[in-house]
């Protein structure tokens, strides 16, 4: 498989805190890669670096063979990198449809076409009954779906999902897993931050485990889950 995203030796610190230490990850076209690790491991920082919201102190990020290090988020989106935010950022005083249309307009440029495309994405995430609701009127779970619909509307080649199941009720998680699987089947490559191991085990072809800003393990979900360092961190030292 062709490598879609490659990061090499990414360093990032905030003051005295080293958020990323020489992180190398590779995401191949068409696969789902899970990014796991305890709170503060640097997962979201890595997302921010890949999507241009932060600039790395050192290292290089390549997307589809191009060096994209230091580019702006909007430029990266136009190249085909979409994302959702862990700290949800809906447009509060715009309707769900308008929220998603903003993403669709970048690709389609015409309001009518963008509305059609937006409705399709809203249907996919199961928010069709909330199309006319304002962003601020949605529950946390609905906001997560809105984040997804919006990012999907930009038709990304690589989609970065930041904890889409956090705060979502258990019955809905199955639907989200299906949706992510479907996106992959339609050709989207996904890099997914998840705390919910069910999601990772069911979906991911590969898992990257981060701890204190460094990559500690990488491989098949089962291999990583049974890695001694991972067990120690998640389950306590006596299990290792």
């Amino acid at each position: 498989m062709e490598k879609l995203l490659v990061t090499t030796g990414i360093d990032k610190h905030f003051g005295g805190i080293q958020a990323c230490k020489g992180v190398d990850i590779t995401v191949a076209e068409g696969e789902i890669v899970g990014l796991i690790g305890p709170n503060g491991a640097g997962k979201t920082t890595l997302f921010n670096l890949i999507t241009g919201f932060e600039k790395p102190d050192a290292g290089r990020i390549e997307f589809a063979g191009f060096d994209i290090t230091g580019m702006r988020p909007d430029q990266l989106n136009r190249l085909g990198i979409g994302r959702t935010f862990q700290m949800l950022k809906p447009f509060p005083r715009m309707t769900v449809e308008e929220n998603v249309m903003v993403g669709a307009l970048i690709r389609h440029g015409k309001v009518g076409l963008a509305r059609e495309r937006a409705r399709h994405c809203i249907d996919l995430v199961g928010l069709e009954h909330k199309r006319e609701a304002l962003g601020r009127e949605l529950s946390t779970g609905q906001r997560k779906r809105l984040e997804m619909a919006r990012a999907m509307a930009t038709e990304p080649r690589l989609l970065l999902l930041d904890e889409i199941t956090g705060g979502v009720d258990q019955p809905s998680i199955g639907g989200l897993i299906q949706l992510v699987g479907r996106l992959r089947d339609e050709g989207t490559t996904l890099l997914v931050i998840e705390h919910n191991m069910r999601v990772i085990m069911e979906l991911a072809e590969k898992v990257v485990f981060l701890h204190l800003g460094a990559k500690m393990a990488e491989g098949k979900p089962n291999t990583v889950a049974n890695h001694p360092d991972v067990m120690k961190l998640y389950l306590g030292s006596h299990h290792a």
Partner: protein
Amino acid sequence: MWVVVAGLATLIVYPLVFDMPFHQHIVIVSLLYGTLGTAWNILGGYTGQVSIGHGVYYGVGAYTAAYFFTVHDLSPWLTWPIAMALAALTAFAIGMPTFRLRGHYFVLASVFIAESAYIIVSNWEAVGAGIGLEYPIHKSENFSQALWVAQFHQSKLPYYYAILALFLASLFVSWRIQFMPLGYYLKAVREEQDAAQSLGVDVRRYKMVALLISVFFTCLCGIFYAQYVLYVEPFSTVSLIISVEIAFIAVLGGIGTLWGPVLGAFVIIPTTEFLRVYFSGHMALDQSALADGGVWAYIEYYLAGGGGNVDLMFYGLLIMLIARFQPNGVLGFFRKIV
């Protein structure tokens, strides 16, 4: 829809029915501020970049027209592109650094820039410093001559219909933007900048687009003002008070809405103009008349405080009332009762 048609018809017929200069003047100023508020609202309301510095662009328009007419005897029809270019350059110079700032920091930066501009203009000898520029009165023999120098001394009608046209143009743009991709991008920038950027919206570019549209009309208003009053000085063009007034029109009327700035202008301007005229009339009283008038004459006299401050007190009162009872602006109040 019918309200709009009726409103438009009223505005067209109004000066033909009310032929007193003062009555026409009030609507001219209301239309001027309606345009300024509408232009401001495209940046401050739709895009959420609250600028308390639009007096700068208003001043660039007014001063450019006045400077070239008084010093070089050039008609504003020739110099308006220069005013526009200067206003656009100013917008770039101010926008590029300040659009990096978010929220309150942007507001503060706009205030500082406006105040600096006021100090510069007030001390700039070439444009008359604190005294300003007074137009030479041009006696025209016919209408086309008057039109060329854009000075009309017999009738306010040409001014009236010129500002009405500008007002309608700004309103049309403000209305149309809402249904264009641009309108969606501007609102996305206002609502959540990071999310907009993650969806491919070039945030700084669209802030600049909004500013330029806003500045286009603000600058034209400045040119109109100069030609209307035929006297340009710092206080009534680039001062902080003017910048604040422009923003108030939109904020008090209903920020981010199409009709808010219009409503704001037509509520505030007539009221303040009446207050100003009424109270400044008492300023002519000499001290003996004041004594004869008793306590009330004194109260009125001090209320006027120099002839032009009652309108500012009225602004203050209005802000308090709106903030307390109608935080979404006067438009919200009308929506409730309709």
